[in-house]
């Protein structure tokens, strides 16, 4: 089909500054670039070299978080990866909990998994929608963004905000399940299952989509491992790895789910795996809502510090208020690392504490940042029109990579 004209190794020696190639600066203000610049060297219609230039939306999240109280990093990390807010929040809180030595109660763990899975569906739908508009299908774009809405409404019902939920705090979560949530969630899940069939007809099995994506942007298993790509893109290349299975957090060790993997690692596989993961998430949400245990939604260490007004609020409204500990939190000296499987891949947090009121070193790596090699390695040898296909299929989100 799409044979590679150039060998990647040879390209390191190609003098790319000559007059032979068209140099295209795709971005930073370009409908197909997002907040980044992709410098592309073209030989006719064939891509010879790609240099992704990121950092246009670098928001110094590490710098900011190292100069603020621990709790104030929660909104910061959320705003870095907007389609995956819950996962960023969760990953940070997990790291802080490791430092503090707090273990949240089981109900809070289940609630965390619940919002994480709802968020994963919205994240995948976001990715599918962006992929759609990159290939020119406005319908899939509108459908996917429209179908995020029922799930975002669920998040709104549970957490009080649509996207930037700030729902997970050290020691637990901030709100309990509201009345009528389970019934509403079941309706939404049934709706989504029906819609996935429509997506299949108009998008996944559309002959034009198949022509555009099959055998485009193939990353072999060995290359995927060597380049360290993450998330659904890694699993599309056939690597069985999922942080939820291999380093379980929240309630994932109690939930039964499969990790779908594909074989070919082309753009079509990367599209399919997102659909499959949505199916798995639907299955998981059903399980969580069925199995969720009763009990507290915040750890005893936090609960015991609540004053009478807050305890009354907790009993009546199932709402966890913040004791003063949240502001004056000083985790003991040490370091902790945590991983969380977000919608786009694995978030990694590494935080070093010196027992101070600010983190000493706040390091985190987002999935899109680790998926950058797709541009430099996979796009080479394809046609210019395949660049949006690859970009859309890896679900790259520039603000997330820039942090």
């Amino acid at each position, binding site marked *: 089909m799409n044979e590679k004209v150039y060998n990647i190794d040879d390209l390191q020696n190609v003098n790319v500054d000559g007059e032979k190639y068209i140099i295209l600066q795709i971005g930073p203000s370009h409908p197909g670039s997002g907040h980044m610049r992709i410098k592309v060297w073209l030989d006719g219609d064939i891509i010879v070299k790609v240099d992704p230039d990121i950092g246009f939306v670098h928001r110094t999240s590490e710098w900011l978080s190292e100069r*603020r*109280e621990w*709790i*104030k990093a*929660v*909104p*910061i990390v959320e*705003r870095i990866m907007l389609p995956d807010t819950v996962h960023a929040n969760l990953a940070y809180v997990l790291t802080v909990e490791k430092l503090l030595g707090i273990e949240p109660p089981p109900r809070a763990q289940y609630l965390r998994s619940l919002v994480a899975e709802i968020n994963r569906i919205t994240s995948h739908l976001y990715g599918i929608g962006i992929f759609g508009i990159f290939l020119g299908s406005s*319908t899939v774009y509108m459908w996917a963004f*429209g*179908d995020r*809405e*029922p799930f975002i*409404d669920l998040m*709104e*019902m549970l*957490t*009080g*905000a649509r996207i*930037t939920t*700030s729902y997970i705090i050290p020691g637990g979560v*901030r*709100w309990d399940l*509201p009345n009528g949530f389970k019934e*509403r*969630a079941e*309706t*939404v899940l*049934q*709706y989504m299952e*029906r*819609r996935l069939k*429509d997506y299949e*007809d*108009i998008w996944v*099995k*559309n*002959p034009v989509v*198949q022509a555009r994506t*099959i055998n485009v942007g193939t990353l072999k298993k060995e290359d995927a491992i060597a380049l360290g790509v993450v998330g659904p893109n890694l699993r599309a290349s056939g690597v069985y790895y999922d942080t939820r299975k291999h380093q379980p957090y929240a309630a994932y060790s109690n939930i039964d789910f499969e990790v*779908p*993997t*594909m*074989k*070919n690692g082309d753009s*079509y*596989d990367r599209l*399919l795996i997102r659909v*499959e993961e949505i199916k798995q998430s639907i299955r998981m949400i059903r399980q969580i809502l069925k199995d969720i245990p009763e009990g507290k939604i915040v750890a005893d260490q936090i609960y015991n510090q609540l*004053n009478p*007004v*807050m305890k009354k*609020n907790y009993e009546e409204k199932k*709402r*966890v*208020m*913040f004791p*003063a500990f*949240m*502001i004056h939190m000083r985790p003991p000296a040490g370091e902790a690392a945590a991983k969380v499987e977000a919608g786009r891949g694995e978030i990694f947090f590494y935080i070093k504490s010196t027992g101070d009121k600010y983190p000493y070193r706040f390091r985190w790596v987002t999935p899109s940042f680790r998926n950058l090699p797709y541009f430099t390695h996979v796009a080479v040898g394809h046609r210019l029109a395949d660049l949006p296909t690859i970009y859309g299929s890896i679900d790259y989100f520039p603000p997330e990579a820039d942090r």
Partner: protein
Amino acid sequence: MSEVRKPRDPVTGHVKALAKGFKYLVEPNRMTLDYPAETMKLPPNYRGFFTVDDKKCIGCSMCEMVCPPEAITMVPRIIGEGGKTIPAPEGEKEAKGPKRTKRPVVNWGKCIFCYFCVDVCPVDAFIPTQVHDLAFEKDSEYRPSYEEYLKPPEEPYKNAKKVVSKADLKRGVGYDPAP
């Protein structure tokens, strides 16, 4: 997963795609809210604009300390009759003395609606509302004075039809008239 990946033959594929598109063309299925004409009544825990209960607040500055974007500033006040506060004399930055206290004011240009302040308040003095769609014309409106901040936010589009959203099997999000 090979059966998932198997390409559909082009003729069936085109026919099915066109048929699905046509089905959606003739079916009533709009999921959008006709926004300014209809506005939504949001769930009670929705995090919208909020004010403070002047009598409940004890001026402890916890909200100022927890605010991640540093949007809250404490203004000096004097406790007057009936527990209500009156402005402190001009030029006084620090509130001192028995009747002196402080009250929070939110800069809406900075606020991110995380509700950390609402949750950290030891006397639960903040009054949350579900109003979320206010627009400001001037910079000074973003930064209200304490008296302006105390007024509960007014919803725009008062004549709009009020609806509540619900999960709908057919169109994802449906809207019922608000009770």
